[in-house]
């Protein structure tokens, strides 16, 4: 029986960072698409599930790829579309990736001790996954739907606003929105999902033996990852997106970020702006901090975008420019994942953005991001930090019982309360 690999040799240990960097480079590559290589990889994947080589529709970004799917869907009869869709995603996933992962997993469990497995996952996969999957894939895929809808809505409205009645516009928009919501597919083949490729390929390098079929499927996946960005596989048709031509990060293995320009740009012009991993409007990313008018904080309806505005402009400058008044402040000691006694200073302030609207905000530090401050709007009737907190938590003072109340938790803006709890303690048992 083959001996399990218990630890890496010093030579192999030295290779870990080399491999991780190699796959970071693959996942963040901004070269033009290599159509021949991508088509070959996808055709052979189709072959694995008994499908003919599809017709390829090449697009320059996930955005135009989604448009292509929508156009395709709207131009085909429902029955033809259904047959095209025909669960190829499920087939491809079930037949190719599920079987592949089971096969790879089996090989690994035979060959690697758990401790080495965990350690390799930590050192090889986590940083890649956090950056490439969480920062890039997840944000792009959630954005695609809203962005596509917004663009179509705007252009449609622009073209129709002079000639159609409001009711007709609304009904057109509604039907278009509904059609898009139904037609946008899940993204299924990710060129940038290299974090797990890196893990399995490295395990192969240190001696884990995969079946011939699993090794070939891995190689095909890697061939795709090295040549294109994402693919939408359907029966007979496969829509493939090219890679971006610009990707900017806070640092290697960091989050998407560019202060002064786009963080993500594709060759067809689809552009996204990010500050510290938060998707922000173009004006916030591209305007110099000293040129940003503090009153523009009023335009930041999203709490994370507002956080980045505050981080870029500076809260002192905002308060000074907007004549902020301190209404109340309170410092409480809370438990965080990093400290059992974190001193958290809440400040209740009121400011005006030159429009005579009273804006009362509760300011608080982020327990997980040192130095980062949040300001969130509360009603002007709130006179104390405790009242502001009660509003934010949707509770009244009668719901608070610091002696017999239940423990509860705050994770970002997410409130976690025991289901049967009546009264609650005033402050969370733990905050992150």
């Amino acid at each position, binding site marked *: 029986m083959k001996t399990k690999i218990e630890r890496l040799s010093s030579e192999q240990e030295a290779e870990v960072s080399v491999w991780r960097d190699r796959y970071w480079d693959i996942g963040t590559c901004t070269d033009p698409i290599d159509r021949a290589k991508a088509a070959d990889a996808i055709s052979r994947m189709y072959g694995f599930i008994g499908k003919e080589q599809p017709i390829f529709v090449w697009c320059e970004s996930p955005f135009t790829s989604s448009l292509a799917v929508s156009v395709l869907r709207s131009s085909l009869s429902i029955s033809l579309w259904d047959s095209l869709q025909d669960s190829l995603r499920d087939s491809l996933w079930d037949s190719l990736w599920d079987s592949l992962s089971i096969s790879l997993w089996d090989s690994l469990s035979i060959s690697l001790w758990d401790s080495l497995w965990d350690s390799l996952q930590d050192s090889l996969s986590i940083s890649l996954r956090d950056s490439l999957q*969480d920062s890039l894939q997840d944000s792009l895929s959630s954005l695609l739907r809203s962005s596509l809808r917004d663009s179509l809505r705007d252009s449609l409205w622009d073209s129709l606003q002079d000639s159609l009645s409001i009711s007709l516009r609304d009904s057109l928009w509604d039907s278009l929105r509904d059609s898009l919501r139904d037609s946008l597919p899940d993204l299924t083949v990710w060129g940038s999902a290299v974090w797990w490729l890196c893990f399995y390929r490295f395990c192969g390098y240190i001696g884990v033996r995969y079946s011939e079929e699993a090794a070939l499927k891995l190689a095909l996946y890697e061939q795709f990852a090295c040549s294109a960005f994402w693919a939408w596989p359907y029966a007979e048709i496969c829509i493939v997106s090219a890679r971006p031509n610009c990707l900017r990060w806070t640092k290697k293995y960091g989050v998407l970020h560019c202060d002064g320009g786009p963080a993500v740009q594709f060759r067809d012009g689809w552009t996204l702006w990010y500050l510290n991993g938060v998707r922000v409007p173009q004006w916030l990313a591209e305007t110099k901090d000293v040129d940003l008018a503090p009153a523009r904080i009023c335009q930041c309806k999203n709490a994370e975008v507002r956080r980045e505005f505050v981080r870029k402009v500076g809260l002192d400058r905002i308060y000074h420019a907007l004549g902020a008044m301190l209404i109340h402040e309170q410092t409480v000691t809370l438990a965080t994942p990093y400290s059992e006694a974190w001193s958290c200073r809440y400040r209740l302030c009121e400011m005006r953005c030159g429009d005579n609207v009273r804006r009362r905000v509760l300011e608080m530090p982020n327990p997980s991001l040192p130095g980062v401050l949040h300001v969130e709007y509360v*009603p002007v009737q709130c006179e104390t930090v405790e009242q502001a907190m009660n509003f934010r938590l949707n509770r009244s003072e009668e719901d608070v019982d610091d002696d017999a109340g239940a423990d509860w938790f705050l994770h970002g803006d997410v409130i976690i309360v*025991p289901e049967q709890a009546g009264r609650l303690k005033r402050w969370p048992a733990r905050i*992150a």
Partner: protein
Amino acid sequence: MKKRTDKRLAEGEATGHAHVAQAEDAEVFGDGFERRLAAPTGTTISHEEHGKISLPVGNYRISRQREIDPDTEEIGSVAD
């Protein structure tokens, strides 16, 4: 409430980040801002930007903090 396969308690619009229950036997139910979490052996909650917190055994109500829009005075869950 429908059981979620992603075990997400909430997700952010501007970042794509999510608050996720990590325990194998943890179950999350529902959509939108109101969800339920069942953690028969307790669970940790993770998020890309926030530190992990551990929850003891139990069932939980999940909701989002509220915010007011000073321009319209509409009250809603914090959009992030």
